[in-house]
């Protein structure tokens, strides 16, 4: 995977240069936001299960999807949905920490659309759940960090479309 730091250092080394100018400024900006990224990652990790419960409650729980014939029925599929939403949250948190989406591309989006279509997982409700997750995360970690995580949840949404 890439992260902001590595993605700035590698091209500098290709040119045999120190990190300078705009690239050094980008790195500075990232390092300055690091402490709040780490804090948010800790908060999200500590309350992941409750973030997922709340997300499902806000988006999927009361819809047809949880009834017989729906894709979250029976319980096995309900649990699979919880697991996938937890993956989305975890990888969006990693990406927020790194400020780089590549780990999402590699570990989540690669092949996801095909997998979902072969399992009959509907895309629209998945996206609704991710949108709800953005709100729940912001409630837990505050707006600023929530937006950073939201940026990467959006990245997952755009990969599902």
């Amino acid at each position: 995977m890439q992260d902001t730091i590595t993605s700035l250092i590698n091209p500098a080394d290709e040119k045999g240069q120190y990190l300078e100018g705009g690239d050094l400024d980008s790195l500075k900006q990232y390092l300055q936001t690091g402490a709040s990224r780490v804090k948010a990652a800790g908060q999200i990790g500590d309350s992941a299960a409750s973030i997922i419960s709340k997300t499902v409650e806000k988006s999927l729980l009361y819809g047809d999807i949880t009834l017989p014939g729906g894709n979250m029925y029976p319980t096995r599929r309900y649990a699979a949905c919880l697991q996938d939403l937890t993956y989305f949250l975890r990888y969006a948190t990693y990406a927020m920490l790194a400020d780089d989406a590549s780990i999402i591309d590699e570990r989540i989006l690669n092949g996801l659309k095909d997998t979902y279509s072969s399992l009959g997982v509907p895309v629209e409700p998945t996206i609704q759940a991710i949108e709800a997750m953005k709100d729940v995360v912001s409630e837990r970690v505050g707006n600023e960090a929530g937006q950073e995580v939201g940026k990467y949840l959006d990245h997952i949404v755009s990969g599902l479309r």
Partner: protein
Amino acid sequence: MSIVAKAIAQSDRADRFLGSSELTQLQDFFSNSSARISAAQKLAANQQKIVDEGSKQFWSQCPNTPSNSGDKQKTALCQRDQGWYIRLVTYCVLAGNSKPLEDIGLDGMRDMYVSLNVPLTNLKTAMRCLKQSAMGVLSSEEASLAGPYFDQLIRAF
């Protein structure tokens, strides 16, 4: 791979969010960001001076060495490499770990210098002098961030 990427990869392998030791490690890393940036900037700005002074020290301790033989090309190559090692140390300071030094400058290094007929023991002395000279342009906090990477470099020879 930076300290951040490493903590993420480690958590990912274990299928979990970041653990408290990783979070603490990253918190420590980010807490001295400004010293990391200033250390990297000072090393970059003073590269020539650090190499020149380091070389003087090196030649006084170890006069019988290819870079001090009067062959200008050899001197230039040796000093160029020392400059490169300073650059790799700045990458490490910014990345929070020694991966850049290891991947770019240490993997295969011994074979290269042996094939170039450059005595590794002399280079070890050169790197020691380079470190000493580099520490001179840094504050104590900056030196504590960059020093361990120079030490690793010295040990590698």
